[in-house]
C-alpha cells in the first residue's frame, strides 16, 4: 500500500504546483499599450494690416486679462503681414495703436481671438479708415488628398470689386472690398493668377503644390492692382496613411511562453502514474481475492 499512497500524494502535489504556476500567468493580461493624450498646447496667430487709407499702426497681442503684451509688432503698414506667431492656446486680445503711440494709450481698435491648440488664425485689419475693423479667421490646416487649398482676400479700395482666377479656375467673382473667400481646393501646378476689375488688372505666376495652403491678397499697389501670394501652411504632396513598421522586435520584452507543451507533458506523466497506480491496485485486489479463495 506504500506505493499507492506515495503515487496518490505525488500526483496531488503536482496538480497543486501546476495550478499555482499557471494561474498568475493567465491573469496577467493587463494591457500596457496606450497613447498619451497630452496636448501640445500651442496654436498660431498672424496679424495683417489691409486697410489702404489707414496709416501704419503698432499691433499688440495680449493674453486675455494680462496687461503685459505678449507680442508687439511695430509700424505695421498697409499690406504688411506678420509671420505666424506660435502662442500657448487661450484667449487673446489684439489691440492697434497709431505707430509710435505710448503702449498705455487707449487703442484705436481691439478685437479678441480664441486660439485653440494645433489651430492657426489670421487677424486682419480690414475696411476703410472710417470703418476699420479687425476680423479673426480660422485658417485651414488640412488639404484634400493631392490638392492645394487657396483663398482670396480683397483689400483693394480703388477697385470695389475684383475677379480672381488661377489658370482656368475662377477663385472669386466680383469679390467686394474687405471680404475674404473660404478656402477652395484646386489641382496643384504652376499657373498664372489674374486679378481683373474693369480695364485694370494684374497677373502673377503662382506655384501651388499638392498639400499646400495659400492666401492670395489683392492690394492697391503704386501702379494699380497687385496680388500677394502667402503660403499659409505646407505638408506632404502625398499624405501617407497610418504608421510604419519600424522594428523587428530584437529588443522587445519577451512575454511568458505558452505553458501548453509543458502542461501536456505533465498531464501525460500524471495519466501514466494514475493508470499504473490503478493497475497496481487491481493486481493487489486480484491477488487478495485469489488468496481468499
Amino acid at each position, binding site marked *: 500500500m506504500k506505493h499507492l499512497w506515495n503515487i496518490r500524494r505525488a500526483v496531488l502535489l*503536482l496538480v497543486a504546483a501546476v495550478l499555482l504556476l499557471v494561474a498568475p500567468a493567465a491573469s496577467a493580461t493587463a494591457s500596457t499599450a496606450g497613447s498619451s493624450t497630452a496636448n501640445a498646447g500651442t496654436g498660431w496667430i498672424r496679424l495683417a494690416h489691409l486697410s489702404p487709407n489707414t496709416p501704419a499702426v503698432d499691433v499688440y497681442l495680449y493674453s486675455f486679462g494680462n496687461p503685459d503684451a505678449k507680442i508687439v509688432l511695430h509700424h505695421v503698414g498697409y499690406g504688411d*503681414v506678420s509671420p505666424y506667431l506660435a502662442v500657448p492656446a487661450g484667449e487673446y486680445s489684439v489691440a492697434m495703436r497709431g505707430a509710435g503711440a505710448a503702449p498705455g494709450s487707449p487703442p484705436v481698435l481691439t478685437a479678441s481671438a480664441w486660439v485653440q491648440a494645433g489651430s492657426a488664425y489670421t487677424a486682419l485689419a480690414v475696411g476703410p479708415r472710417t470703418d476699420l475693423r479687425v476680423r479673426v479667421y480660422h485658417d485651414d*490646416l488640412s488639404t484634400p488628398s493631392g490638392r492645394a487649398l487657396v483663398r482670396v482676400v480683397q483689400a483693394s479700395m480703388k477697385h470695389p470689386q475684383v475677379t480672381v482666377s488661377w489658370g482656368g479656375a475662377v477663385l472669386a467673382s466680383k469679390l467686394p472690398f474687405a471680404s475674404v473667400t473660404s478656402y477652395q481646393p484646386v489641382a496643384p501646378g504652376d499657373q498664372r493668377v489674374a486679378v481683373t476689375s474693369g480695364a485694370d488688372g494684374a497677373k502673377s505666376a503662382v506655384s501651388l503644390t499638392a498639400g*499646400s495652403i495659400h492666401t492670395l491678397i489683392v492690394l492697391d499697389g503704386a501702379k494699380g492692382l497687385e496680388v500677394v501670394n502667402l503660403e499659409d501652411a505646407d*505638408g506632404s504632396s502625398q499624405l501617407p496613411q497610418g*504608421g510604419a513598421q519600424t522594428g523587428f522586435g530584437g529588443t522587445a520584452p519577451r*512575454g511568458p511562453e505558452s505553458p501548453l507543451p509543458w502542461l501536456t507533458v*505533465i498531464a501525460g506523466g500524471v495519466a501514466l502514474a494514475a493508470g499504473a497506480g490503478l493497475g497496481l491496485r487491481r493486481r493487489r485486489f486480484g491477488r487478495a481475492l485469489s488468496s481468499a479463495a
Partner: protein
Amino acid sequence: MTTRERWWAAVAYAGLAVAIAGTCGLMLTSHGTPGLRPAAAAQLDTQAAFPAPTAPIVAALPSGQPAAVAAPATLSIPEIGVSTRLTSLGLTAQGTVQVPPTTSVAGWYSHSPRPGAVGPAIILGHIDSLSGPGVFFRLPTLRPGDPVYLRRADGSTVEFVVTRVQTYLKARFPTEEVYGPTPDAELRLITCGGAFDASTSHYLSNIVVYATEAA
C-alpha cells in the same frame, strides 16, 4: 509484492518523474524576459515651455519669400547618440511611408517638406533589428527642449527643438495630426514602440517625436 506489481509501481513512478520534469520546465519558462529598451522619458508639462515673457516679444515682419532649402543628407541627435545619413523614402503600395532598408540608417520621406521649409518633414528609423538596437533605439527617451540637427545636401544645417513625444497605437494612428500641413517648419521623427506582437512580428505602437525649427 509480485514481479507484476513491481512493474506497475515502476511505471507509476516513471509517470511521476515525467510530470515532475514537466513542472520544472513550466517553472523555468513561465517568466518573461525584460526588454532591452529604455523606458520612455516622463512627459513634461508643455505649458512650462512657454513661461510668460517678462518683456514683450517684438516680432519682425517677413522680408520677402522664404528661400528654397536643399534636401536633407544627415541627421544628428546628440542627446541619444544618433548620427546617421538619411536615405530617401517613398510610399508603399498600402500608402504608408517606406521604411529604411537597414535598421542602422534613418530615412526622409521625400514627398514631405524638406527640413527647414514650411511643413512637417517626416523621418523614420527602426527601433531595433531582429537581434539588437536600431538607429532610433533611444528615440523614446527624448524630451521637450532637446536639439535635433539636420545637415543638408548643400552643407547648410538646420536645428530643431523637440516639443513633445507621443505614443500612438498603430490601429489608431492620427495621420492628420502627425503628417498634416503646418504653418511653420517642423519635424517628425518616427519609430516603433509599445508592446511587441510576436504573432505578427510587429510592434503595436509608433513613437512620434514632434519638433519645430529653433528660433
